[in-house]
């Protein structure tokens, strides 16, 4: 049975569903239905994402029916609590961890349930203090010398075991390189749902489900996703998207060491780690970012961007257009498929402001745009826009900054 059907005898051919569909998946090409002379809706199952916008639009005639079933999930009622993955590597917790704890504590307000953290590795008891200081109520820990920082297969197995034992209803991880590799493996082990790169997490007041909202189609639209029948509801959140948790005055969290869970041997062999002090790290943490886009016209003109970055003490970023053209390495790319940044000041030079780029920087405190096209979309998000030739404006800006005028 098709998951979505049009009930022809109810359809009046009013076209509301066609207008509501973001995927161009409905057309009025069916046989005449309830209203004389009006062709009925036909749904292209290939394009349809079952988002339900059409059924919503057809509330009056109830001509579109979606049958949502899933394979049998976990016993939802047995799951409670909000858990986060305490990612760590080479001596410190990942910088995203305080942010997902912050998100968990926000959800805690609606759910009134404890916030826990899963911490697995070697020598990790050293992080428990910090986790508790962010308001984690319970740290579920496995501290074992055989668990290497890079033994992701072992970590995934242990995380899955802990989740199945402790049964939190929500499990959050960072949308980091490791998070985006480990959490999907865990979700596949447990057979539950995982939503990547959420920009918003909230609790639906009537169902108490976790509403997971994320950009889709390169950021052109937003989608809200639910994991109804499976637990835990897993989600990842990228660095610099959510606010970090405040430190608590009197940390009262407990640490539970789960020594009864056997630690498997890794099938991966860690050889070495090579640190590369690229400006990447500086980019994400920088207070000021100066970015160049297609308007730079030539790779050698990135020197101008660098000059302005130097004058402002900032880092150099780039749009996808500049990176794809080979003008600057991918590590500088800001956007949907690059880095998400939240600096105090973001100066976009010669960047048109495509949705994919905005997705990576629109959280910046202050956005400044320099572009010769007064109609460039970037001016819609910029707090300050300078319309002009960047080859003249940037040197002028550098000059005035340096002269202290």
């Amino acid at each position, binding site marked *: 049975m098709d*998951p979505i059907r049009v009930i022809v005898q109810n359809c009046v051919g009013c076209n509301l569903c066609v*207008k509501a*569909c*973001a995927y*161009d998946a409905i057309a009025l090409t069916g046989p005449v239905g309830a209203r004389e002379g009006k062709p009925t809706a036909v749904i292209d*199952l*290939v394009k349809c*994402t*079952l*988002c339900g916008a059409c059924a919503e639009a057809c509330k009056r005639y109830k001509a579109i029916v979606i049958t949502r*079933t899933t*394979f049998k999930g976990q016993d939802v009622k047995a799951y409670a609590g909000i858990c986060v993955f305490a990612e760590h590597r080479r001596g410190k917790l990942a910088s995203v961890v305080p942010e997902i704890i912050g998100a968990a504590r926000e959800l805690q307000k609606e759910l009134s349930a404890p916030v826990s953290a899963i911490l697995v590795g070697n020598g990790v008891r050293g992080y428990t203090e910090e986790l508790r200081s962010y308001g984690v109520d319970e740290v579920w820990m496995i501290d074992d010398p055989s668990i290497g920082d890079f033994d992701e*297969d072992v970590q995934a197995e242990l995380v899955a075991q802990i989740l199945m034992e402790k049964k939190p209803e929500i499990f959050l991880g960072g949308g980091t*390189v*490791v998070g*985006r590799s*480990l959490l*999907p493996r865990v979700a*596949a*082990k447990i*057979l539950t*749902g*995982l939503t*990547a*790169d959420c920009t918003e997490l909230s609790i639906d007041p009537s169902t108490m489900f976790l509403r997971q909202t994320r950009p889709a189609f390169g950021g*052109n*639209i*937003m989608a809200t*996703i*639910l*994991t109804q*029948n499976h637990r835990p509801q897993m989600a990842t959140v990228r660095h610099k998207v959510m606010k970090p948790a405040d430190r608590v005055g009197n940390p009262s969290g407990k640490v539970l060491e789960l020594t009864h869970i056997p630690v498997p041997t890794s*099938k991966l*062999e*860690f050889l*070495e780690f090579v*640190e*590369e002090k690229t400006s*990447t790290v500086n980019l994400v943490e920088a207070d000021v970012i100066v970015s160049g886009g297609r308007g730079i016209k030539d790779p050698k003109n990135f020197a101008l961007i660098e000059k302005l970055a130097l*004058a*402002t*003490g*900032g880092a150099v970023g780039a749009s996808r257009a500049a990176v794809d053209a080979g003008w600057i390495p991918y590590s500088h790319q800001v956007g*949907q*498929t690059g880095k998400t940044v939240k600096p105090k000041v973001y*100066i976009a030079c010669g960047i048109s402001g*495509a*949705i994919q780029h905005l997705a990576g920087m629109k959280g910046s405190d202050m*956005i400044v745009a320099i572009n010769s096209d*007064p109609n460039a979309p970037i*001016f819609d*998000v*910029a707090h*300050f826009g300078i*319309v*002009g*030739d960047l080859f003249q404006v940037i040197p*002028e800006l550098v000059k*005035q*900054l340096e002269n202290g005028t």
Partner: protein
Amino acid sequence: MKIIICIKQVPDTTNVRINPETNTLVREGVQSIINPFDVYAIEEGVRLKEKYGGTVTVITMGPPQAAEALRESISLGADAAYLVSDRAFAGADTLATAYALACAVKKLGGDAAAPAGGIDVILMGRQAIDGDTGQVGPGVAENLDISHVTDIRRIEEIADGRIVVERLLEEGYARIAARLPVVLTVVKEINTPRLPSLKGKLAARKAEIPVLKAVDIGADTERLGLNGSPTQVMKIFTPPKPGGGKKFTGEPAQTVGAFLSELTAAGITIRKR
């Protein structure tokens, strides 16, 4: 060496726009392309074949038109391609997709007793530009019960069933060894993909691309498509358009001056201290 590349045909999201009147996606004129990250995976697969011998097979789970992407893969050097396509797959999230692809890989490997059916290396791009999740690779590996490593920027060597790779992390890279079979997701740093060749295009034109349905890959239908998807999209909306701020037009000396004055007035400084 038996290599399988999993690709996805995606709309070129850089060109997708919202119709401001109807607030819907404008998909006309937006081309369907091979997911750019997967093109790097195809290139790496072909390079592995050139270095170690063997075959490169490309598969995709998608609608009938996805066969175009498979033909393009052949013009880029792949030896064979299969389209994993069935109404039963519709509405699949990453869990259901990973399950279906894993079944297909095992079936194509042919050796029911061997892990991954006898396939040695499974490659794909780190993420698809329409979904951006990066979840299918690890999911496929879990379903096949084999190792996976994501974000590969270099395959150093393969010898005696052991592969050494460089994995790109935020602050550098890790050198990791794994035993075959393995799933690897690749980043753009890994290579520069070749352009198609004429011989490749001729082969692609003639190629027969078999379609594998749910029954052909021995999948449990409960785990496929919408039914096999714990996550479901409940609502789609266009992000609210933010309002613009102050715009300065005129001679650079004036506009820059005015801009800096505004900052000072607002107590903001961008000068390097």
